[in-house]
């Protein structure tokens, strides 16, 4: 089963089209996966591997990057990887045909949401086990699928976070040290004043003493 399909622009992670399998049937709450998918699209950049499978619990994300566009789908872990990537390839061919030139000028999210119709149809043919048999020819072309990198979604998503945590810690540290510096300065001046004051008081009392009692 393909639960979720998403097409996004790699440069800024802008979603271009998406399709959701009715969660009524599967009874699964896709909300969390959706936000993961969105985050993932934002994390990906041109340096990311072209094809990758990310494990997220009992589901797998598969994505494919081509021509600056990322095609992402969420399937059950048991769903054949081959077919998933064949499906993504298929989407890419059609999507690039239809909208390839407009991708870079898209401004608003889901500009090509109408592609959903095609996604849903294609999905049906890939998910349907009877139709799957007819796809045998495609499958063989994808023999190199075995070499696709596998990683865990959490790791991918948190990679950036660790850095940002480090960054915030560092900045905290620097503000703290600044504060310490100013505090120290303040304390120094205060103690200096206190010393001066003590000396002054001493002399004043001395003078007064001399003036009134000595004489």
């Amino acid at each position, binding site marked *: 089963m393909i639960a979720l399909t998403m097409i996004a622009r790699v440069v800024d992670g802008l*979603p271009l089209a998406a399709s959701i399998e009715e*969660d009524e*049937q599967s009874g699964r709450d896709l909300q969390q996966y959706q936000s993961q998918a969105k985050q993932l699209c934002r994390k990906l950049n041109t340096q990311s591997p072209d094809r990758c499978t990310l494990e997220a619990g009992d589901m797998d994300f598969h994505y494919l990057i081509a021509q600056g566009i990322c095609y992402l789908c969420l399937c059950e872990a048991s769903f054949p990887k081959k077919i998933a990537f064949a499906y993504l390839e298929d989407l890419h061919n059609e999507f690039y045909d239809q909208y390839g030139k407009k991708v870079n000028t898209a401004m*608003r*999210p*889901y500009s090509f*949401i109408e592609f*959903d119709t095609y996604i849903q149809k294609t999905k049906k043919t890939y998910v349907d086990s009877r139709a799957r048999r007819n796809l045998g020819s495609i499958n063989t072309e994808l023999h190199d699928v075995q070499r696709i990198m596998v990683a865990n979604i959490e790791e991918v998503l948190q990679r950036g976070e660790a850095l940002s945590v480090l960054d915030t810690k560092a900045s905290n540290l620097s503000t703290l040290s600044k504060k310490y510096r100013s505090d120290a300065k303040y304390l120094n001046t205060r103690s200096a004043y206190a010393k001066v004051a003590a000396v002054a008081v001493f002399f004043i009392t001395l003078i007064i003493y001399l003036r009134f009692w000595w004489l």
Partner: protein
Amino acid sequence: MSTAGFNSQNGTGTGQAYANGPSQNPVGLQQLPGVSYGMTHQPTYNPMQAKAPAPPGPGLYPTAAYQSGPPVSSYQSGPAHTSYPPPPGQPLLTRPAMGTPPSHTPPQSASPNHGPRMPLPRATPPPPAVSSSSYYSNPQQQPIAPSWQYNTAPAPMGPPPSLSAPPCGPLANHTNPSSSSTVPPPPTLTAYSSPQPAYGSHSATQPPGPRMPSTSHLGYTQPGAAPPPLNPMLSHTYQPSRPAYGPPPTGPPPLGPPPAGPSPAMTSTPPSTAPPLANVTPPPPKADAQCREAVNSTLSPTEPDCQESDIECPGTLAGNGPQSPNNFNSIDNKMAGLPQPGLPGRHLGHYPSLPPGYQNAAAPHKPTSPMHPTMQAATQPYSQTTQPYQQPHGGPGPAQLSPSLAALSLQSSSPEALRVVNLLQERNLLPPGPIPAPTPCLPQDLQKINCNPEVFRCTLTSIPQTQSLLNKAKMPLGLLLHPFKDLSLPVVTSSTIVRCRSCRTYINPFVSFLDQRRWKCNLCYRVNDVPEEFMYNPVSRSYGEPHKRPEVQNATIEFIAPSEYMLRPPQPAVYLFLLDVSHNAVETGYLTVFCQSLLDNINALPGDSRTKVGFITFDSTIHFYNLQEGLSQPQMLIVSDIEDIFLPTPDSLLVNLNECKELVQDLLRSLPSLFEKTMETQSALGSALQAAFKLLSPTGGRMSVFQTQLPNLGVGALQSREDPNQRASAKDIQHLSPATDFYKKLALDCSGQQVAVDLFLLSSQYCDLASLGCISRYSAGSVYYYPSYHHQHNPAQVERFQKELKRYLTRKIGFEAVMRIRCTKGLSIHTFHGNFFVRSTDLLSLPNVNPDAGFAVQMSIEENLDDMQVVSFQAALLYTSSKGERRIRVHTLCLPVVNSLSDVFAGADVQAMAGLLACMAVDRSVTASLSDARDALTNAAIDSLSSYRQSVLTIQQPGLLAPACLRFFPLYVLALLKQKAYRTGTSTRLDERVFAMCQLKYQPLAYAMLMIHPALYRVDDLTDEGALNINERTIPQPRVLQLSVEKLSREGAFLMDTGMVLYLWIGRNCHPNFLTQVLGVPSYATVPENLYLLPELDTAESQRIRAFIGWLRDQRPFFPTLHVIRDESQLKASFMQNMIEDRTESALSYYEFLLHLQQQISK
């Protein structure tokens, strides 16, 4: 809104957000009687409180309280009085000469009030003591005034505070303007006037130059610019213009001075005349000043001062009338106003028994006019102000005069909205055309960009500073919205939408820019950074002018939302039709009309290539239609297990419209014949709804239910609860609340899945709309009701159904919407009216939003708005368009804050109040009882008018006095009492009553007002005079007549527009010319019985009336049917029931109602 907030806003989130909803529901939606109806029980609008103040009054008021209270004291003493105590005509006769002469004098009192601001007057004419006395008298009276039913309720707030508050107020007003750069505080007339008094005193001593005043005005208007020191100067300038009027009424303790005073003023060279007058005696000059003020304000066109004043506050001046002769109100006022002055004296004695003013409104005017020809000429345009003036002369003896004069002078300069109207004497209040919404007293530059009142309107265009002041005014405070109105808006696409970081307000025209890089939120006053992107202005292609961005130039704007605003990809447009095909339904023949309409409009359904449609029919079983691509014809799947409903096939019940259009069209062509011979009489609506919900829940969308009978099978079955014999009973109406919560629960489920249910009820029998309506109410759907629908017997309904269905199918639609209304800190929104589900305190969940939906909210003031000159309200509607775009539509309304009761009254928007009261009364009649709701409506009128009488009027006078801005209030309240929704004693079907209630809550104000107070036109003598010209069509504009049989004549033909229905009443002796030229019949007797279409004759008369009717219809989203009726027609009764000013067996006439109000007020 935090990010969490976002999520909820997106609304799609089914899980949590939804969960919140249902649970809250009971609280939010079903308002407890007390809560919902703020008027009586709640603190917000506490009648109680208002009363409370009065009692203390007598004792406390005397000196301190009053003096401190700027509004009152200042006014009397100075010219300001004139402005505030609006009532020009009223006071004259009634009061014995209490302290009239003195009242004017007390310059001292005035100066102290203004003290902080103003320099002391050089020469302070000191007749102070007396003036105060006059005031006292009032307070004393106040206590006397009886409290209405409200009194019984506990008064949460302390009334006394209100008194104390005022003192601060004036100062604040004046000072603020100068200090605050952003908001020039609304120099409403009142505000304006109040300062004047101070000036006036100054002026008396110094002969001011005419020019000077202008500058002073400017200073006032533009707070930022005007430094305080200028004020003295200003005062001088003012003098010249104002003095003229003042003297006659008040100044001249004896009559002597007055005549002279007025005439000079009239001459239009105020400056020259003024000085001499001043010399005479201190008191008189002041009076003069006052008068002149009044004159100036009214006459302004000729005088420089006035013009400037215009600039300052255009709105107010326009309201006054002089400036804008076009203004209907002003004209009308004249008409009304004139009679007042003349009559009062004579009538005082009688009027309780007779409505003197009623018959001869115009007459009085003439007698008075001769007295001061010059005056009249000058004043005529501004009739309101001048009238008071005239009165003294025509009126009673000298003894009476002096007090009356004093009153007059005070009122003479009052803003139009506060002009006192004696409702018992003025009959012809209705303006000839539509009543425009009042303009908030904001500086012109703010007002120019303020939100359109058709979209966003407040019952009080001047927000009281404190809750206690609001309680004292006893008027409901609330907003009326029409957020998704069809408009062409500027649309902004940007990756970041600039919002306040703490309250999430969208940037709007009323924020202030501290500098180029920072802006201050106008709702929470937090200072925010301007993002880099915002510095560039895409419109002018310039950089560094954030205040020129469209967001900051338009109060209504639409944003394309970035992906943060969506939890899931935008849903496609999904339409599911749920059709009743039982025997009863087939009998009505609606199916043919529906299918034909849908076939005709199938290409006009809003949507893109993803649009999906589906059909379900039901009788005692549920029929699904498989429309999968590739089938040669639609396949019907019947599910007879209605107890545990399931979908026979997971997909292909909802199909892509573009791909399966052929099949859909096939189905629509065959549907009507499919069930032609059915004998199934039962209806399993509940199960059908459940099935439809299952079908739609994955995507969300719109479900259109067509039902023709009471559902009587399976879940959600209902029983008839109406006893036809009780329809006319005056006793309480039962069964206004739902019989089962099945529909409400289902609606909440739907709301959680972004499904809205629209209900079309076509039935001749009782259908329990009160229960069925819940399905639409909580899912943000709409309800259409076609009583007695039949394809042969009721062609008018068929036409209406066709037209409305067309509009319904093709109108704009927004999916998975949420709306949030924010308001400035200190105000809080507590009750919502309309069709929606309240998901969190201020978030309305709207699975669908359509352009014909209106909303209302009630507000209270939680914290004092002390240091604010303006408050803002922002409604943000986030929705998915039918093209799959996520958009945010933002409306921002800005209103001034005032601190005196008279200003609050001056800003009342009577139509909005009527609309809000109607909504509140619906809640009340459901949660309590109809008679409770009726009482509450009456009390609303009594309370606000008695509060006005006790707290604002300085001089008491018999009669039912109302400020001009509230002059329609009793009429609207009476109209509501006679509205189908609330009337008693007249036979009304329960469903029609409930439907009327739905409409009152759901219709935008403009349409609801017609339902409340229909418009009556005489149409047999239409001319092109004053006609509109739209698209090359000439549309005559007949005058709106009062709803009274006395306005009908047998020689004429009259058109009544009740919103949903148009009646064309033909008089028995109607001119044959009209009959032949318009109706195409030779004589009255041959007018056909059920005529609902005007023949398209090629005559000028026919074209005119058809153009007029067409124009009326084009203005609204529903289709009013036309009925041509004669005396014998069956519909004559319903026509006559709309004559709300007349007496019926069970209801009071307008005049009787006014007497009743008066009795309650003076009790």
